[in-house]
């Protein structure tokens, strides 16, 4: 058995070079998906490009207009740095991921590149219309998340491209991330929902996880509730119980879940609408 060659670049440029030089080389970040696949015999790369030493991937930047998050940012960082103040739903999502060991190693870039329907950062990124920057031998390109994640565990990232960073616009207002699993911690989502309330644009953004092949937006639900909320009510935006219930129903309609060994389609659809409604209820005042 030939051992894989391992490159240890310190810059993104070197990483791209290393990918180009060794055909079939694969990127290794925290290894929390990668190594599981190696153990299952699903992945046997001839060469590995390890990203741990690439400091620029671990950078994040908060500006008045946007938040830039390096692909190498770990869940521990998402949940425990100033990022958690500007993107509380990302922090909440990060805190639901795995165990402390997984949160110390696993990265945002790895979550995007794995493109699992249950990837916990993806619903919020979808809700915020995140843009993802990739760098390859031909230079950089930036695509919306929806064009990166194209199906169950499939992406448009080329084999010689590195996810460099993710950019989202800053939004003023509360955010929530809720995730349903059969266990109280360290569990793959059966359904998840990220809800972002934008107090300036007067809109609600909803991203759903584990209820479709890719993270989905609940646009009908967003439009309905955006109109139904009284944005100028004293004490904060206000929605009627009926409008919230309708919001839940429309969220359910945005889902196209499956039945598998983890749960049933019927339950997933039910659960996602319950958690989306509850998430919104934590952000607005519920009128009688």
């Amino acid at each position, binding site marked *: 058995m030939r051992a894989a060659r391992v490159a240890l670049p310190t810059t993104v440029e070197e990483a791209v070079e290393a990918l180009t030089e060794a055909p079939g080389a694969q990127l290794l970040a925290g290894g929390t998906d990668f190594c599981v696949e190696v153990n299952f015999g699903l992945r046997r790369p001839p060469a590995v490009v390890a990203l741990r030493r690439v400091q620029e991937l671990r950078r994040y930047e908060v500006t008045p207009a946007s938040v830039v998050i390096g692909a190498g940012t770990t869940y521990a960082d998402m949940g425990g740095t100033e990022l958690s103040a500007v993107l509380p739903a990302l922090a909440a999502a990060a805190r639901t991921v795995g165990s402390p060991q997984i949160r110390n190693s696993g990265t945002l870039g790895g979550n995007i590149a794995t493109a699992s329907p249950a990837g916990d950062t993806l619903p919020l990124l979808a809700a915020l219309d995140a843009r993802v920057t990739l760098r390859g031998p031909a230079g950089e390109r930036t695509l919306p998340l929806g064009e990166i994640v194209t199906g169950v565990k499939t992406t448009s990232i080329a084999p010689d491209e590195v996810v460099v960073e993710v950019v989202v616009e800053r939004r003023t207002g509360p955010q929530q991330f809720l995730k349903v699993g059969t266990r109280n911690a360290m569990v793959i989502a059966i359904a998840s929902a990220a809800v972002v309330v934008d107090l300036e644009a007067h809109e609600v953004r909803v991203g759903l996880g584990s209820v479709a092949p890719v993270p989905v937006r609940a646009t009908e639900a967003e439009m309905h509730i955006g109109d139904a909320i009284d944005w100028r009510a004293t004490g904060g935006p206000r929605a009627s119980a009926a409008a919230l219930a309708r919001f839940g129903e429309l969220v359910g309609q945005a889902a196209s879940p499956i039945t598998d060994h983890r*749960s049933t389609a019927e339950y997933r659809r039910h659960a996602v609408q319950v958690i989306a409604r509850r998430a919104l209820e934590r952000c607005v005042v519920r009128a009688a």
Partner: protein
Amino acid sequence: MTANSGTGIAERVTGARRGDRVGDSPARPDGAQKTRGEFAFSSDLWMDGMLWGKTLRSPHVAAKIRSVDTAPALAIPGVRAVVTAADVPGRPTFGLDVPDQPVFASEVIRYHGEPVAAVAADHPEAARAAAAAIFVDYEPLVPVVDPEIALEASPIHPDGNVFRHLVIRHGAPDATGDVVVEGDYEVGMQDQAFLGPESGLAVPAEDGGVDLYIATQWLHVDRDQIAASLGVPAERVRLYLAGVGGAFGGREDVSLQIHLCMLALRTGRPVKMVYARDESFFGHVHRHPARMWYRHHASRDGDLVKVEARIVIDGGAYLSSSNAVISNAACFAPGPYRVPNALVEGYAVRTNNPPCGAMRGFGAVQVCFGHEAQMDKLAAALFMDPVELRLRNALERNDRLVTGQVLRGAVPVREVIRAAASHPLPPPPDPAGPVTARPGGAGATAGPEDVRRGVGFAVSMKNIAYSEGFDDFVTARLRLEAGVDGEAVATVSVATAEVGQGFVTLAAQIVREELGVARVVLAPPSTVDVGSAGSSSASRQTWMSGGALQLACATLRAELVVRAAELWECAATQCLFDDGDVVRAATGERLSVPDLLAPAPLETEHEFHHRPTRALDADGQGDAHLSFMFAAHRAVVDVDPELGLVRVVQIATGQDVGKAINPVQVTGQIEGGVAQGIGLAVMEEIVVTEGHVRNPSFTDYLLPTVLDMPDVLATVIEEPEPGAPYGAKGVGEPPTISSGPAVLAAIRDATGFPVTRAPVRPEDIALTWMRRTS
């Protein structure tokens, strides 16, 4: 003794004395190593020049094997041997009870994951590639996966599809009660999920035999099965216990033992094998799934009149210990209650599902979900408090079981119920508390208004040791000698498998208690220098191996007294043993154990048998069991009914232990057993569809995490059991039996929904909620 998980272990176990004798709580000898990660488990075994083994398993549930071509595997560089059914030198089958399971499938595949071949290679990767390269031509068959259908279907094995059909008829068959409640219940397939996967190292020996280092529960029964299949005399197969990373029943059956030995003999080289986690799910038997129907009759006052039950357990493709599991399920079908009339029908059935066998609680677990749900139903029908109903019907000493057996030992059923019920309840859910403390945990799904609290109660009973006439014994040897520094050293040789239960601690405590000798050495357990100790299962080793050791100590104590009497030239009756010394009664002179050992060491060997039990007759009547343990659990559970998510807040328990030889270890068994019990209640299940195992990994076979584990409040009831060493009953199984049923009862209490299946799935609760609210 009260134990509360909220605080550190030292304060937790009141009554845990520091010393190192019976009733104290000395630390485990392997504890620090295990905590530091320095303990050598069987997966750490290593020998220079060893090969790596790998098993090829069937992807099909049921199939005919048309042909097997191993040539492509042998062509891979580094591959040293491939063995199949054709290479088994001796008996082609094995089995704990009846050898009905092929070492390798030869013509027929009967379950998903059945072994077809094994490979040895220089490197684990070469072994893996070789196993994948073996070409097996399968003709898939339609599997029989429903036990009810299997009862009628044409046999999938020459021995037929019914392992055992057992009927218990007791009292008047047509007795009826004023109040009758009926229900159907189901339990899913739980896995032992021990953390140390199956592993071992086989080394070929010069005499044509083999030395096997192995993690197992019962060295001698493994040896006998290996020797039979290798076709060599048992003495040439020598087993040595390697570090065991948990067992819970899953290491009672042979897994890789015979494969490893065949590969070692074929290659003439040491061969190591370690199952990966996914293979471990295919490599051992699981807890039997069960379907149960119950009808309880009671008088208007709440006295049980009759219990009727039909219990069907799915044994999967091969027998394993199904016959004993269904016997327990049938015998304990009514639970720990006085039942004058009963008709219980039990079936253990063969299907094309994964084989099932021993797991902690062994048949008593499944029926407890049924009988306890029935007791709650009955209480509701009678407008009685469920705890009152249980107290009213609780078994007492001299009562009869439905098998006709009279209970002659300690039967503190009321005491365990009262103890569990009298623990303080936890404070109500805190609306201002962290969201992660509510059902849904880290997922932050529930607001304070989404949570409903429920309280549930369950009581259980189980037998200790082997039943139905099985000749259950332990051989133990004890040697006393003066060490180089003149101190006495006691060496214990007993083949008892330490699987985590703490026998290594108890053995030393017993010798210290009996002989006052501080230095106790446990010889490594093996089949080489001592006879069988039986299995580390059925909560039996404290009684059985402990009993053998106590007997050996008594013999040596008597011999020490004789030696002293000879020196003093007085009658032995004039001397008595007093805490490590022999004292001459008349003069008060003393001789210490080291003094008495100076001329020569002392040694004794004992075979300890428990009181014989009897087979059940055609009506399921007979003194089939040695002794019984009882436990009660009260669960407090928070439920989010709309999402169907559950959080167990507190388990309070009373447990009948006879005597806590090591209170800290008892607490450990209680807390660990509770974790396994609530796991079965709310998350642990091997999902099998059409015979296919869908979740063979810890990604999808969910075990409770620390966020799922409730506070545990425990009271142990110490009413000594006659005939047991120090009066100690086993303690390992009861915490796993009624904790889960108590959790389901609490979920029913919180929701008002008829939760009848374990594990309860979120959809079971939430979809009922949807139907009721729409």
